[in-house]
């Protein structure tokens, strides 16, 4: 029976697991060999299954093949034979070489440890996101390039350089020691957060790919929560944030791939179960006294799951943005805060504060002022929408801004 989607699906879920387990088994210097074995396993599957039909348990079949290939590699690789293997032989007098363990618990353990290995300060953050997608999520250079809107070669070279670094430094695939966990975990969370944002805010037209990125970021975050040392208030807050954002995934673009702004979204398309999950994780993030930026952002995102404009909603959002800006300034936070201010204290005060931001080369600055002036001064509004068109790089976006101007002049 033809099952055209099974192998790609298995590749997406199983490839990264095999790589993580084998790489942890061999050690980081053998990352490439672990990847090769995983690839060969899938190649063999596609050839064999095509001829002989599907095995009863395809996943178990993949694991067995990968396991045998790994043992074969250890027995025949010179480095293992001469350096690593004798030590194992000495350590275990029965001369029994331990097999790679592809049990669910060791898969999870290996992926978690791999996450810490990749999110290492010696790797540039941008490359960490790429590595996470490649090694932990099984995305190829082509897919990553499409999501990042850059060309394949750039990504390929970036991945190769980062992998070289992991091997050269012989980064251990292990949990950081207890007192280093907060700092190292924070690097892991940053990577997950960037990974999610890459999917959520990417200008790429490939909606399925963007959604996959978001889901993968959430899956990695869930892995962290399954381990007690990494199930922290902060990691719960980040997952809550992502659940709330992801709940609007279907509603925020239409069938033509055009952006549907928050105010114009169909609330019925919001994913209620995801919102509930977000609330669950938000509650769990309330343990401990430290308030991270993820906590504040999750709380802001929570209020956005209430569609109706109420004084309470915008007042809360404004105060949260005030707090967030005191911890961490970003232009987009400043702009969002000013929008909330206009909702609470009126458009005039919003305009006054917006103009103080002076982010004249920021497209969203002009979108904000365009929106605010729409209500009070058509000429000024036009000026800002025109400016936004000049700064925009996307045709669908330009078309949207033009439609706003056209509506104004009627």
């Amino acid at each position, binding site marked *: 029976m033809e099952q055209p989607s099974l192998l790609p699906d298995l590749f997406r879920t199983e490839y990264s697991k095999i790589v993580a387990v084998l790489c942890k088994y061999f050690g980081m210097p053998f990352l490439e060999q672990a990847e090769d074995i995983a690839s060969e396993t899938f190649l063999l599957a596609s050839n064999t299954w095509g001829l002989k039909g599907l095995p009863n348990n395809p996943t178990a079949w993949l694991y067995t093949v990968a396991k045998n290939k790994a043992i074969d590699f250890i027995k025949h690789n010179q480095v293992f034979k001469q350096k690593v293997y004798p030590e194992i032989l000495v350590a275990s007098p029965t001369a029994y070489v331990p097999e790679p363990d592809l049990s669910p618990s060791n898969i999870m353990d290996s992926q978690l440890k791999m996450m810490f290995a990749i999110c290492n300060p010696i790797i540039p953050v941008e490359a960490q996101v790429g590595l996470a997608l490649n090694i932990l999520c099984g995305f190829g250079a082509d897919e990553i390039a499409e999501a990042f809107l850059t060309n394949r070669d750039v990504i390929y070279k970036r991945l190769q350089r980062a992998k070289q670094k992991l091997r050269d430094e012989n980064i251990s695939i292990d949990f950081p020691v207890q007192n280093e966990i907060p700092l190292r975990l924070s690097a892991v969370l940053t990577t997950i957060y960037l990974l999610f944002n890459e999917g959520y805010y990417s200008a790429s037209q490939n909606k399925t790919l963007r959604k996959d990125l978001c889901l993968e970021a959430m899956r990695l975050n869930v892995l962290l929560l399954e381990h007690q040392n990494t199930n922290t208030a902060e990691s719960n807050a980040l997952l809550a944030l992502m659940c709330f954002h992801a709940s609007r995934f279907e509603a925020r673009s239409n069938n033509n791939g055009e952006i549907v702004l928050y105010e114009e979204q169909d609330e019925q398309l919001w994913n209620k179960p995801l919102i509930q999950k977000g609330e669950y994780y938000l509650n769990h993030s309330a343990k401990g006294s430290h308030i991270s930026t993820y906590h504040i952002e999750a709380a802001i995102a929570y209020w956005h799951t209430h569609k109706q404009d109420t004084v309470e909603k915008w007042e809360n959002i404004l*105060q949260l943005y005030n707090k967030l*800006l005191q911890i961490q300034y970003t232009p987009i936070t400043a702009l969002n805060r000013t929008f909330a201010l206009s909702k609470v204290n009126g458009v005039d005060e919003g305009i006054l504060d917006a103009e103080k931001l002076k982010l004249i080369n920021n497209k969203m600055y002009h979108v904000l002022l365009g929106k605010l002036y729409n209500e009070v001064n058509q000429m000024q509004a036009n000026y800002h929408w025109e400016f936004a068109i000049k700064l925009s790089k996307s045709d669908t976006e330009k078309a949207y801004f033009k439609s706003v101007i056209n509506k104004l002049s009627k």
Partner: protein
Amino acid sequence: MNDFLLVFRNDVALSQTQMSPDQMQTMMKTWMDWIGGIAAQNKLVSPGNRLAPSGKVLATNNVITDGPFVEIKEAIGGYIIVKAETIDEATQLSHGCPILDVGGTVEIRMIIKMD
């Protein structure tokens, strides 16, 4: 860019009047909005602190006196640190400070960097 200390002073008597929880919340909100506005311009260095209205003064020869301080009418209620190119710009940032609504003042002082 230089750092500037903004010191908020207001009437001692005023700072000791009791406020209802609602008044307190409204006051906090106006302060947070004002500080948030400075942070939105990426010009907040530190959100500073609020100070309790009473205190003590230690002078030479270990003379300790209780504040608030009889010889002056105004006491420091709090401070924040902002960054700006010039003292004029820092003064500009001080406009809209809620302390001005209750007859207080903002004192703007450049912080001298030690290297």
